[in-house]
């Protein structure tokens, strides 16, 4: 359904375009879920926005192709997007307060999409809007629908935005941290709702998140991003159970588990480099416990025998190799 090839996005800095996303490629099929994971600043949000022509200015797409079936989305301009956004590709943004219009009530914002995209009449759209609010677990939709965004809690706003997106039953949904602001019990409810939409309508889903628990629950495939590049991509079970890239391995090991206790959590030294400050060669090298000769050169994504791709000269290929549990050290 969606095929992204070699997508790059740059931001102007000192008269040059600094890459924030570089040569990102992936596919999403009907009913399938791809998770894009990584820490803040890795380029996952910019990637998601660029797919639907919303690259945050002054950033711009510098190369690549984004195909929705036969339609080249990067050539789409102006009003052509109206037929695509919302109906074909829905988007759940990370920050509901800026994504919702402050001068319209929650119900109006959901109904507006239904009138515009699905040509529903007033009463019908309103009824459907209330039904969508109930679907995302908003208690008492008739009264909540009349509240303005500022009168709703963060979790409620998030759910209003999700309701507005799924009410249109898009073929593909891009969800940027859709459940991060929600309590765990509500999170599970939203995930189950998204899965029901996939089951019933074959909706494709791109979920952008830093939460590997959410990824494990919902995703079929996962792309791990670091410093603007995909560093590992493959089947969710392969990647999370036997991470081949040391960054993926570090992320998985750093998560405290609810069902076991260890004395120390494994950590990844240092912090994620900002765009424009990427180190030469492998971008993870300064933080990598396995860095060795050759890592000072840029690395390509390479396929492994188990079907995944990895951007590492020394990928971990069996599960007995453990990332060292580092003593807490200075981030620099």
């Amino acid at each position, binding site marked *: 359904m969606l095929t992204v090839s070699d997508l790059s996005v740059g931001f102007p800095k000192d008269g040059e375009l600094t890459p924030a996303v570089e040569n990102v490629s992936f596919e999403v099929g009907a*009913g399938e879920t791809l998770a894009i994971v990584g820490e803040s600043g890795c380029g996952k949000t910019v990637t998601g926005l660029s797919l639907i022509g919303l690259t945050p200015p002054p950033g711009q797409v510098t190369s690549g192709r984004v195909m929705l079936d036969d339609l080249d989305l990067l050539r789409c301009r102006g009003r052509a997007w109206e037929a695509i956004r919302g109906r074909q590709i829905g988007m759940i943004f990370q920050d509901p307060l800026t994504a919702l219009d402050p001068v319209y009530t929650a119900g109006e914002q959901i109904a507006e999409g239904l009138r515009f995209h699905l040509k529903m009449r007033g009463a019908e759209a309103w009824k459907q809007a209330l039904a969508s609010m109930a679907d995302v677990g908003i208690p008492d939709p008739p009264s909540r629908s009349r509240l303005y965004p500022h009168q709703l809690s963060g979790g409620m706003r998030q759910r209003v935005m999700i309701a507005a997106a799924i009410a249109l039953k898009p073929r593909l949904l891009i969800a940027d941290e859709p459940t991060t602001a929600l309590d*765990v019990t509500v999170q599970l409810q939203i995930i189950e709702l998204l899965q029901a939409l996939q089951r019933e309508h074959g909706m494709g889903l791109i979920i952008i998140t830093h939460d590997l628990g959410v990824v494990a629950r919902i995703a079929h495939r996962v792309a791990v991003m670091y410093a603007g590049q995909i560093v590992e991509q493959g089947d969710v079970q392969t990647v999370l159970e036997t991470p081949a890239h040391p960054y993926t391995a570090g992320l998985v090991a750093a*998560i405290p588990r609810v069902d076991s206790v260890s004395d120390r959590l494994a*950590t990844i030294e240092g912090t994620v480099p900002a765009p424009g400050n990427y180190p030469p060669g492998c971008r993870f090298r300064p933080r990598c416990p396995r860095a060795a000769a050759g890592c000072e050169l840029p690395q390509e994504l390479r396929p492994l025998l188990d079907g995944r791709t990895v951007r590492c000269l020394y990928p971990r290929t069996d599960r007995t190799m453990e990332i060292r549990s580092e003593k807490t050290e200075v981030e620099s």
Partner: protein
Amino acid sequence: MTDPDVQDHPVSSDSLLKLDNVVKAFTSRRGDVVRAVDRVTLEIREGESLGLVGESGSGKSTTGRLALRLLSPTSGTIYFRGQNAAGFRGADLLAFRRQAQIIFQDPFSSLNPRMRVRQILTEPLVIHGLARGREREEVMGLLDMVGLRPEYADRYPFQFSGGQRQRISIARALALRPRLMIADEPVSSLDVSVQAQIINLMRDLQAQHRMAMLFISHNLAVVRHLCQRTAVMRGGQIVEEGPTEELFRNPQHEYTRLLLDSILTPEPARYRDARTEDGGRRTEDGG
């Protein structure tokens, strides 16, 4: 499950902080009264770490602010080392504040942007008239304790990452060598890899200084990792409280079980059925 109406522990000899049947009610503009904290009884002993978990709106942050006397209870009593904290005035209050410190969730709004790290760390000492003439050594000691380089003393907060700022917040809280540290979602805004660094640091510091800690979090996995005892809050009330290991292994209250069951762990095999049933076009045999 505890019944706050019946429960009445005496204050034990090593009790550091005790909330006894504490209520905090807020009145909305329309005149509705909401009990954000409803008959909460909790005790923290010297050197002990207590995790307070619950979802948004459960009253856990309000409980933390009550414990620190940043809010006064509507009814009920808060004891600090056996003394009624409501009665603290002047020198007593200052002494209490020295012994109870807080770390906030947002490391961007909780540090004064116009102060250098050096000032941020010495301000508590100046207020309490401590370490006069030894401020320099104190600052260096604190930076070392939280794993920051000495030269950072002359920088401003904006020059640091989120994780580094949270280290500065922790150093500032430690400057007075408090007996009680209240940490309100201290790692929630941090990236996973940095979060692990801060959790390890807090665990080390709590053990080294034998400092009691009230750790407020929505993240049960973090609490399991850090706290000896855990209390679960819902709708302003404590629904279950006990030794962490026991509570996680054998939760008694239905709500605790619901919370534990809702947590997603990064183990895809666990959710294989939930995933494939949902129409994924996985043609390969799931392993």
